[in-house]
């Protein structure tokens, strides 16, 4: 089995300059995530979760410290090199879905393949359809985002994240804009994908969501203050079927 950590950060810091004052968003983060893990990052507002995710997602560079993604150092890479890493190794799921409006679900899912530098573009259409099928939306391929429910939109976004078969799936509050039932559906999808071997890092405020992951990392003021495995992860698919989530019980 491949034992190269998917994520390996050492003494990672991020300092923002606001005029003359420095904001220490991250103050030295050491974190290692192995392949196949499902990690929740928790913490109060302003604790540095999004900042950390941006660096993990190669959207931003740390002020100091090192970050290796899948064994590759990201130090000193320029914009285009980071873009290529995002394209090849990372999938993003955002709180606000971030789908292209007036563009079909299929075209949205295909988007990362358009920018792929390898030959994957050739089969883009089929790959996008397969990814949509994987999130259960094969029959909605030609719908536009405004014709889909919030949960469906988020599943299109997940399909878009999956289409390049990334090493790591990053999700910043993916259920934040969804009601509890659709949120649970999205979680069930994440659990299913994780069972298939995909490494997932998810940011959340809620313990109710974190308990469906397998490891919880807690941040406060830019430091890790807790890192514990979830002793008995919930099963979102099973809980969806329980009376509390049946439509008539609402």
């Amino acid at each position: 089995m491949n034992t190269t950590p998917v994520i390996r950060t050492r003494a990672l810091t991020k300092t923002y300059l606001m005029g003359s004052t420095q904001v220490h968003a991250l103050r030295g983060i050491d974190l290692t995530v192995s392949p196949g893990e499902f990690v929740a990052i928790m913490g109060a507002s302003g604790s540095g979760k999004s900042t950390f995710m941006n660096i993990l997602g190669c959207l931003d560079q740390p002020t100091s410290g090192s970050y290796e993604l899948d064994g590759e150092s990201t130090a000193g890479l320029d914009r285009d090199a980071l873009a290529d890493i995002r394209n090849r190794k990372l999938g993003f799921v955002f709180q606000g879905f971030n789908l292209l409006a007036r563009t079909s679900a299929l075209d949205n899912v295909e988007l990362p393949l358009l920018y792929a530098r390898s030959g994957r573009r050739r089969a883009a259409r089929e790959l996008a359809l397969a990814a949509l099928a994987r999130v259960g939306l094969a029959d909605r391929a030609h719908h536009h985002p405004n014709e889909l429910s919030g949960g469906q939109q988020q599943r299109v976004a997940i399909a878009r994240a999956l289409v390049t078969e990334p090493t790591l799936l990053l999700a910043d509050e993916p259920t934040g804009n969804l009601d509890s039932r659709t949120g649970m559906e999205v979680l069930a999808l994440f659990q299913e994908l994780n069972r298939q071997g995909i490494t997932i890092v998810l940011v959340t405020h809620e313990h109710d969501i974190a308990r469906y992951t397998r490891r919880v990392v807690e941040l406060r003021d830019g430091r890790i203050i807790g890192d514990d495995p979830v002793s008995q992860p919930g099963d979102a698919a099973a809980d969806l079927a329980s009376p509390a989530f049946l439509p008539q019980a609402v």
Partner: protein
Amino acid sequence: MRTLVLVKVALQSIRKNTLRTALTMLGIIIGVGAVIVMVAVGLGAKQRINEKIQNLGTNMIVLTPGATAPGGVSQGAGSFNRLTVADAEVLRREATLLTAVSPVIFAGANIQGGTGNWRTAVNGVSLDFPVIRDWRVASGAFFDAGDLRAARKVAVLGATVARSLFGDQDPVGQEVQIRNVPFRIIGVLAEKGQTATGADQDDVVLAPYTTVQTRLAGRQFIPQILAATASPADIPAAMEEIRAIMRQQHRLASWEDDDFTVRNQADLAAAAEGTTEVMTMLLAAIASISLLVGGIGIMNIMLVSVTERTREIGIRLAVGAHGSDIMVQFLVESTVMAALGGLVGVGVGYAGAALLGHATGWDTVVSPPTVALALAFSAGVGIFFGFYPARKAANLNPIEALRYE
């Protein structure tokens, strides 16, 4: 391959925003249309002037008194009058390449006769004049050598004068008073139409120059000598011959400049063409300003579009687009919009030129090179004015772009 995908993305985006695209294109459409119509008007005018000048006779040479400044502009021609009837006679006798020579003496005069009064130009000319100007007599006859020698009071009327004084009646044989001197009408000239500058050539009375000199002008000097050659090919040599004879006739020393000016129709055409060229350029320049304004419109809309689509750009960057990919996408968008606008503008230009020609009676000539130039220019405008917004889009920070509301 990659650019092909980006072009596709850009085209999709153009299609998804039909109204915005149409509004952006409007400026370019008007600009290109205006350029094409304006140049068409200019070229039409030029063509018409050329036709008129050809109509004067291509074998004609014009000799006027006074020196010519470098550049072909006659300097105070006529102010120092040094042409005489003797000059014309010498030319006629000695020049081997000239088939016809006629002095022309101008005299304005009031003419009475027939049904009333008419003010016109009386030109004193010789027997060669109809040959030089290629001008037939429609009714009656031109005066003959006897009339000329004896300075008889005979007149040949231009078509306009004949019509004004006698209506449909044939005036040949009738009498008119020119400055109260009775003249017998012996002929009426064929209709010739307007000159390049719009003057009515038929508003004239021709009489023997001897008669005009003694009865009307009373001058020893003459303002113009007209001559003609057998063929246009003889013109350059004939002009040299005239110069040589005239210098001798005027006893000019070798260091002295000519005190006369020899021109042919080509010179006149060139001068007129120069004028219309300047006019065409001016019109095109004014129209180009509207094209420029159209370009600024594109930049404006593209800037708004970049702001409006910040999130889209963020999404594209997040999933792996390079800055250059975004740049190309936006550049293709602006260029395609401008080029499409240019294409529609060409159609509008053609229609506009035809319509304007129809409404005003002007000649309009749409030239393919102008169309090609306007198209290329509009595409260039798209690239030029799309560049800044495209670069702005390409340089967006993906995190901030994603967070943009």
